[in-house]
């Protein structure tokens, strides 16, 4: 078994330090939002979690295309790893969003485009994992996973557009506000710094976990091969 790469060990430590700093910034550095109060602090990690959740979607689709073109197992492991990580992070984003919504909209859930799309993305991830679980042949599992990742990557934006035609109440903090959005606010420089730092931190967490998961996937492949060899 190959030892843990030095760079990965460094990345682990950097990620942990970044995360501790990010938590500190959210609670100590960022100012208290005047209207919503403490619950607004959810926002920093909520958006960062959602960002990681969507990142996995992109990585899975790119790995899917790469796998179908090249047929290299490593792309399959990468796609699977990305979906597994994003499944968890997106769930955290949905739950933290609910907590925020309770505080500022007065409801846990509403059928707004972003929320609905988020729920559907989470279901797509679940379907992807279930599809893979139902197939024994590794090659077929990889091909089907790749195809499903690509198809859902095309479908989800269309879902978003189709629900968007209704009016949204989700605040658009980045890039212009939607009319009628509730709970919107302007970020002060300190807030913006905290927000950007959270995004950076979670990108590091994603990269770190992805690397670990890909390494785990390769090791799993190796043990599977060894097991088959022993059985023969």
């Amino acid at each position, binding site marked *: 078994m190959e030892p843990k790469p030095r760079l990965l060990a460094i990345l682990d430590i950097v990620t942990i330090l970044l995360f501790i700093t990010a938590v500190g910034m959210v609670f100590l550095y960022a100012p208290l939002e005047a209207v919503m109060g403490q619950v607004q602090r959810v926002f920093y990690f909520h958006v960062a979690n959602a960002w990681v959740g969507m990142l996995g979607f992109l990585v899975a689709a790119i790995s899917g295309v790469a796998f179908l073109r090249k047929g290299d197992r490593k792309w399959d492991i990468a796609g699977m790893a990305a979906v597994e990580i994003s499944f968890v992070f997106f769930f955290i984003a949905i739950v933290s969003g609910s907590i925020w919504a309770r505080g500022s909209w007065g409801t846990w859930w509403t059928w707004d485009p972003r929320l609905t799309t988020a729920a559907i993305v989470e279901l797509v991830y679940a*379907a992807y994992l279930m599809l893979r*679980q139902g197939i*024994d042949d590794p090659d077929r599992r990889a*091909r089907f996973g790749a195809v499903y990742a690509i198809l859902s990557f095309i479908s989800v934006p*269309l879902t978003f*557009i*189709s629900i968007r035609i209704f009016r949204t109440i989700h605040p658009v903090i980045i890039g212009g506000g939607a009319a009628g959005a509730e709970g919107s606010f302007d970020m002060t420089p300190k807030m913006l710094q905290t927000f950007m730092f959270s995004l950076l931190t979670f990108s590091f967490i994603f990269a770190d976990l992805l690397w670990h998961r890909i390494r785990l996937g390769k090791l799993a492949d190796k043990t599977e091969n060894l097991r088959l060899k022993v059985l023969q």
Partner: protein
Amino acid sequence: MQPIPQTENQVMRKEPTLGLGQFIRSLTAIIWKDMAAELRSRELLSAMLVFALLVILIFNFSLELDAQARTTVTSGVLWATFAFAGTLGLNRSMAMEKDRGCLDGLLLAPVDRSAIYFGKAIGNLIFMLIVEAIVLPVYSVLYSVNLFKPGLLLVILLGSIGYVAVGTLLSTMAVQTRTRDVLLPILLFPLVIPVLIAAVKGSTGFLQGAASEDILPWINLLIVYDVIFVAAAFMVFDYIVEE
């Protein structure tokens, strides 16, 4: 030296059918095969139809479809019915190919793989349209709503095309897994949500006589979805049936 690569070429050639005429011939052969099998057994259509009527029956009691409710929920009830009955048909149509080793036979046949996909998809579309053609008048009679508006029929056609385009692809995937029957709706529904939303909104628009600029975005969305997913399915189908 020459003969060896030549024979190899003949064996390796995956698409001996480059002509459009050949493509259409194999396409119609596959559709005809499905129709003939259905004419003899009648198991797929009858199951879809009875199931569709049962779904409407359940909606009748669960939603209290009185005159007031009918004006707003009719298209929702119809599309939920089509979607549920559709998965039943898609599952059955592909399971039939898989169970009797028919899919392997089709793959061995010297026809373009995309002809197999389009053949199956058009066959499924025909079944779905037949079911819809029977459900619509039954619903009209049961609830005395006039459903025969050209706009509504257009929405139903466009929606069915999108649904079947993705459904055929995913059912080909689902039958090759261990959890085949359970898996298709789980894979399919999250991906056809744009079709269902657009179709329900478009149908409601036509039923309530909304202005055309309110309905047009939904029609456009359906067309976009149909085009994108027929193209995508065409591109990835090879990878799903490859052995």
